[in-house]
């Protein structure tokens, strides 16, 4: 097992196929739907560029699987080694831009106090990107001659690279003989006109973690459950406000796609995609839901859907179709059409919004003292979902990052209004005047 990992570091042209979650992306990516997510850390002081560049160059050898480019095969895309250094850019362009062909699938950007990583979902998921950021911050701490405890766990340069980090863990946990999943009916989608291209705009807001935690604790649910419920509640409000005829036209299920890190369910150290999602939702045909009712159903749905057996069923559906020989042997240019069609019917048609939570981030004290907050922005939403939300907590700050491609900010405004009504203060990172 170790052998291949070392081989991968040494030989120039190692390659691997795309993991199960990544397979769909090359077919559906375009200028606006880029499948690029962003993970930023805002420091208290401006970035010391010399130390940071050193940290980046030290980290390079530890992440050989990120030094890859996307190539077209006859049947599938694959990732092939590309001998480039990790690039560090000045962060002054639009966020979450698509990656060029024949280049790396991630970028490191710096501007003032902010360090941002943008990763293509073809390469890895939020957890994989965060592991990389963790290493960068640990090395940066060391470069600043601050203390980094020896027992702090991160992917250290110089240590052996585990074969597991390269693996497609979906395949490992795939079980045959599991029945396919039942297709869900179409979900409600936000109304609203799209902005002209480039559509994507992000709004980052900072809330007090203590206050949100207190709100959630009062209802005896987790912060994640609480925020999903707020999202559903807000979508219900938007639905109910629609004019009668438009309401009639819209689908009456509201579902939120909540990615789940499968590394927490199955033991895996992969640095590639290994997440699935659950879709808690409400059925508006049954009438108006109060916030408490939504909380109750979300709480149970999330627990039910993250059951190992049900997750297995999902993995089997996704991997199973990829394993079928008649699907495998369709040439790539035909597969592209099929994947594009499948993506819409299996993906965005089923959910009304996306809420992805990277969770609580912790570092050793010296590193924590450098950091003000983190921001986790999900990839630009597609034309159906229109808005997506990323959450990350650090110390006393919970940061909500909304990615929006429409001309309206109604969803965000209602979200903030919900918290304001409960006495919380909302701080905007990028000073949106009309909402402050």
């Amino acid at each position, binding site marked *: 097992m170790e052998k291949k990992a070392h081989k991968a570091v040494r030989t120039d042209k190692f*390659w691997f*196929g795309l993991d199960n979650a990544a397979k769909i992306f090359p077919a559906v990516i375009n200028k606006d739907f880029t499948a690029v997510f962003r993970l930023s850390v805002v420091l208290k002081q*401006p*970035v010391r*560029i*010399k130390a*940071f560049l050193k940290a980046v160059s030290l980290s390079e050898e530890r992440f050989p699987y990120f030094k890859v480019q996307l190539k077209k095969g006859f049947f*599938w895309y694959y990732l092939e080694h590309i001998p480039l250094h990790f690039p560090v850019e000045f962060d*002054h362009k639009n966020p979450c831009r698509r990656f060029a062909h024949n280049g790396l699938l991630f970028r490191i950007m710096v501007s*003032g106090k902010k360090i941002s990583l943008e990763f293509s979902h073809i390469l890895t998921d939020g957890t994989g990107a965060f592991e990389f950021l963790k290493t960068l911050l640990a090395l940066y701490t060391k470069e600043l001659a601050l203390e980094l405890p020896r027992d702090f766990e991160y992917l250290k340069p110089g240590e052996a690279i585990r074969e597991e980090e390269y693996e497609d863990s979906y395949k490992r946990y795939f079980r045959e003989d599991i029945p396919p999943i039942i297709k869900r009916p179409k979900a409600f989608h936000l109304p609203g006109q799209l902005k002209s291209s480039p559509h994507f705009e992000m709004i980052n807001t900072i809330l007090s973690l203590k206050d949100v935690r207190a709100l959630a604790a009062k209802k005896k649910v987790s912060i994640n459950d609480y925020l999903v419920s707020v999202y559903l509640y807000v979508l219900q409000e938007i639905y109910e406000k629609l004019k009668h005829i438009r309401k009639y036209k819209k689908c009456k299920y509201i579902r939120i796609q909540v990615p789940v890190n499968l590394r927490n369910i199955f033991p895996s150290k992969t640095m590639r995609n290994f997440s699935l999602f659950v879709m808690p939702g409400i059925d508006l045909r049954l009438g108006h839901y109060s916030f408490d009712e939504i909380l109750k159903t979300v709480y149970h749905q999330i627990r039910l859907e993250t059951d190992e057996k049900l997750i297995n069923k999902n993995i089997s559906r996704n991997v199973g179709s990829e394993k079928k020989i008649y699907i495998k042997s369709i040439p790539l240019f035909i597969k592209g059409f099929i994947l594009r069609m499948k993506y819409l019917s299996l993906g965005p048609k089923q959910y009304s919004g996306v809420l992805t939570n990277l969770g609580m981030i912790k570092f050793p004290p010296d590193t924590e003292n450098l950091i003000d907050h983190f921001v986790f922005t999900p990839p630009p939403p597609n034309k159906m979902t229109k808005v997506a939300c990323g959450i990350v907590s650090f110390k006393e700050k919970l940061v909500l990052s909304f990615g929006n491609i429409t001309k309206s900010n109604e969803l965000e405004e209602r979200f903030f209004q919900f918290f304001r009504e409960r006495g919380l203060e909302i701080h905007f990172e990028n000073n949106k005047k009309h909402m402050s």
Partner: protein
Amino acid sequence: MTTCSNCGVQLEDNMNFCPLCGEPNLDETTENIEYIKLRKQKQEEKMMTSFQKLSGKQKRKLFWEISGILLISGILISLVIDLLDGHGLSWSVYSMSICAVLFVNITLFSFLYRKIILSFAGSFITTAALLVLLDIFKNNIGWGVKFGVPLLLFAYLIVFGLVMIIRKAKEKELNLITYSLIAAGLISICVEALISIYQDGTLNLYWSLIVIICVLPVSSILLYIQYRLKKGTDLKRFFHI
């Protein structure tokens, strides 16, 4: 420690330039502040000019406007001169119809840039109409419909195919010359075939076969040069299933 005036990161004192954005590292003395301000202003201006740079669509529109002015004034001038001659409409019908068809074609390709099939179809129809008109203007012997339009159709189909192939081509080097040569060979076959059918009523190919026979080896040599230099793709990787 100083802070970069452009990107805001902290620089070591011994750094002359910011390694991130490439701006010079200057102390904020009065003299330098002026310079920093000036540079910032210049950069903003640079951003502005690049922002103000016309998009492809705007450029096409501008081209359309200029050619519209030229062609329409061409039509008017030739019309006036021809009428002043005192013999009514004579030679100006040629220049006017050519200008008009040219203008329609420019309009099609400027505004239907993305809808290539539609613009080619529109262009074909107007040019075919021009050929028929030219035939009518001069003796009306019928070459327009019998010979001109079919030849034009084949030429359009071949050029359309060529454009599509070039658009799709991943590498745009010698292979483009190859495709163009083959297209030229095909057009010459069409020309000879149509001439022979129009004149003799039978299909006789002679010189165009020589053209295509000459074109093929040249094309294959070009393709060979194009792909010979490339490393052979790893078949296992390419065909992984």
